[in-house]
């Protein structure tokens, strides 16, 4: 074989290894930088105590927390607790969103009441949709049926589209005096205030969603958990500050890793960048094409791959399995075989494509069967702060 080609493949291997190391250290560095707590200690207790945990726990996808300890008491005593996590409806759901919903489902199995705000106001304010009505339409036609198809329990799940639940804005008004624009711009940057909607949303509406379950209408003060990606951590800090000022219990936080972008594993999958994501609306052909074009942790020369192995940590294809395949033993086996060069990239892509197509098409079937979802929609009037 051409020496030049071999040399290049070894160089490529080193670059991918460096990328894998960079991705691995990113989360460890964030824990220190943001003064979060490593989740591994709590993971050990959950694994020892629960009859069944979840891939998100066993694979370290939940990697950090802030004040999660009170939630463990609710879990241990079988008491209800509340989880709030939403999204803005600017595109169909993708596999990155599914990670969050898998987490919400796991927490619901542990006793959580789940509140899911669909922030179509935010989509519009941030310019992700042309009109407010467009974001509202996406919410009802696309997002809510897709969420319900994941299998949430209607008795323990409340979904609300912000523009159809104006009570939340009254609550936001009652919060607003506790947060200054200066504080918001310090935390999020000046661009967070570059239109009046953003200013109100970031300083009050977002916080109203987090604190909502602690209103009298929902039983009053309670432990609330907010699962977030690392970029949303500032919201939790503000919410905890405001909660203290308003005599609510400061919300707890768990932080999960991003589903890696298909084209750059150091970046996250993003709904506004179609090449980075597999949508839950994608066809089998689209999925196959996207996986075939995805960034991999394998070098381009097969003999060098067999000799040096792959870098699962820097592989957007392996990441799809790692975040979504339910079987820990399977993942561990694939990880080891890939790392040791015992499985080729072609084989990995085939396995992954087959798995993801089934995952997505199954979801599409379930979504099709969702005809009504009134029982999930939160309509409760809010008066306690008026």
């Amino acid at each position, binding site marked *: 074989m051409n020496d030049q080609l071999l040399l290049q493949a070894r160089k490529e291997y080193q670059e991918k290894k460096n990328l894998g190391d960079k991705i691995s250290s990113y989360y460890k560095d964030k824990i220190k930088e943001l003064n979060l707590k490593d989740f591994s*200690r*709590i993971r*050990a*207790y*959950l*694994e*020892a*105590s629960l009859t069944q945990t979840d891939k998100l726990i066993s694979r370290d996808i939940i990697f950090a927390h802030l004040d999660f*300890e*009170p939630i*463990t*008491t609710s*879990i*241990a*005593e079988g008491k209800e607790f509340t989880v709030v996590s939403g999204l803005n409806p600017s595109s169909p759901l993708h596999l990155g969103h599914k990670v969050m919903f898998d987490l919400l489902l796991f927490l619901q199995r542990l006793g959580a009441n789940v509140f899911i705000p669909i922030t179509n106001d935010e989509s519009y304010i941030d310019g992700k949709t042309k009109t407010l009505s467009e974001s509202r339409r996406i919410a009802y036609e696309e997002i809510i049926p897709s969420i319900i198809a994941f299998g949430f329990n209607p008795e323990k799940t409340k979904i609300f589209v912000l523009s159809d639940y104006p009570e939340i804005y009254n609550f936001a008004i009652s919060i607003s005096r506790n947060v200054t624009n200066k504080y918001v711009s310090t935390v999020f940057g000046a661009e967070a205030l570059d239109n009046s909607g953003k200013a109100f949303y970031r300083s009050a509406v977002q916080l109203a969603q987090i604190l909502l379950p602690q209103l009298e209408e929902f039983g009053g003060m309670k432990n609330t958990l907010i699962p977030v990606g690392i970029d949303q951590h500032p919201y939790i800090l503000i919410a905890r500050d405001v909660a203290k000022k308003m005599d609510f219990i400061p919300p707890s936080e768990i932080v999960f890793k991003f589903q890696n972008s298909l084209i750059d594993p150091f970046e996250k999958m993003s709904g506004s960048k179609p090449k980075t994501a597999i949508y839950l609306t994608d066809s089998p052909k689209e999925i196959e094409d996207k996986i075939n074009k995805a960034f991999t942790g394998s070098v381009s020369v097969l003999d060098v791959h067999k000799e040096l192995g792959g870098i699962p940590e820097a592989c957007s294809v392996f990441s799809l399995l790692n975040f979504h395949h339910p079987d820990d033993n399977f993942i561990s086996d694939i990880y080891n075989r890939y790392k040791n060069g015992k499985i080729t990239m072609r084989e990995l892509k085939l396995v992954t494509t087959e798995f993801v197509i089934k995952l997505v098409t199954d979801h599409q079937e379930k979504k099709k069967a969702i005809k009504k979802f009134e029982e999930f929609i939160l309509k409760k009037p809010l008066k306690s702060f008026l």
Partner: protein
Amino acid sequence: MKNNNFEQLNKLLKTKGLIYSPMFSVDEVTNRLGKLNSIKIIYGETYDIYGQTLDSLKYYFFAELLARELRSIGFKVVVDIIIGDAHSVKNKIVSNKNQLLSIASERIDLLEKIKKTYGLKNNIILMSSLMRDKTYQENLQEISDLFSKSKEYRDIAEKTVLQNRISQEEKAGYQYVLEEVALILGYDIKIGPPRENNYDKLARLMGKRLNKNQLSGIYLKPTYPLGMKFDYFVTHPEIEEFGLTPYKAGSNKLQDHRIIIGQTNENQIKNLINNSFVAKNPILPNPVFDVYLISRMAKCLINNVAFQNDEEVINQPQELKSKAINELMDKIIKPLQN
């Protein structure tokens, strides 16, 4: 006559679930012991009004098993169990000092019964009587002189007390710490919970300066409360790390979560054990396995055989609970009732 067979000793010192390994090197101890003919072992404990904990028995039993192994390889071994009557009332927050002093004799009576039941050969010594001993007083004087001149010693002493008690101890000139060090100076092995490491460190440093025996610390795993679900340990990281004071039932006001000899009845024992968090993961607290280990040590002592661990049972939580209850009742609670 010493032989070189440390195998059984090493086995005992490496018992999983019993020895707090990060602070302890078997080689260090065996190397040092190899140079000695006679070995003095100390275990000291204070107490409170709630009674004799099962967890104290772990230390008595381990001291005896250790002594037996050392004797079997040719050492002359003395084990002293010090009952810290004077130290039990030393703390300012202790209000019932007279009551505490008066129950020292009850404690000694129970200890004698334990000795007889399990064939322990240790001496039981009251701290108050030891403090009148001339050697002890000379030790105390010497280390007090050394202590007053050393910032290093003061820094270590500071680590032996809780943050909120540092100023109180400073005012008292760290008298409690110095008395503790004076007590253990001259011994070869001290057995205790890991939280006593700093006393031993101080004793080693000062002992070296005073040409005394070099103390080896053998730390047993921390003591944890029974009847707690996993969240207790998650929400109390300081208990997870350091445990409770093994010999004080009222440590952290958790007397209802301890087994107290002669007081905790069978139903309470069953409730405590059955409602306890049990982990297969050996790095997590496992108070039920501790009960089981103590009961197994008791069994070995009664049968006069070397200690055999049964670490596999940790992988069967229900079986562990059931075995812990049965062995505890058969080998400790019932024999000590008679």
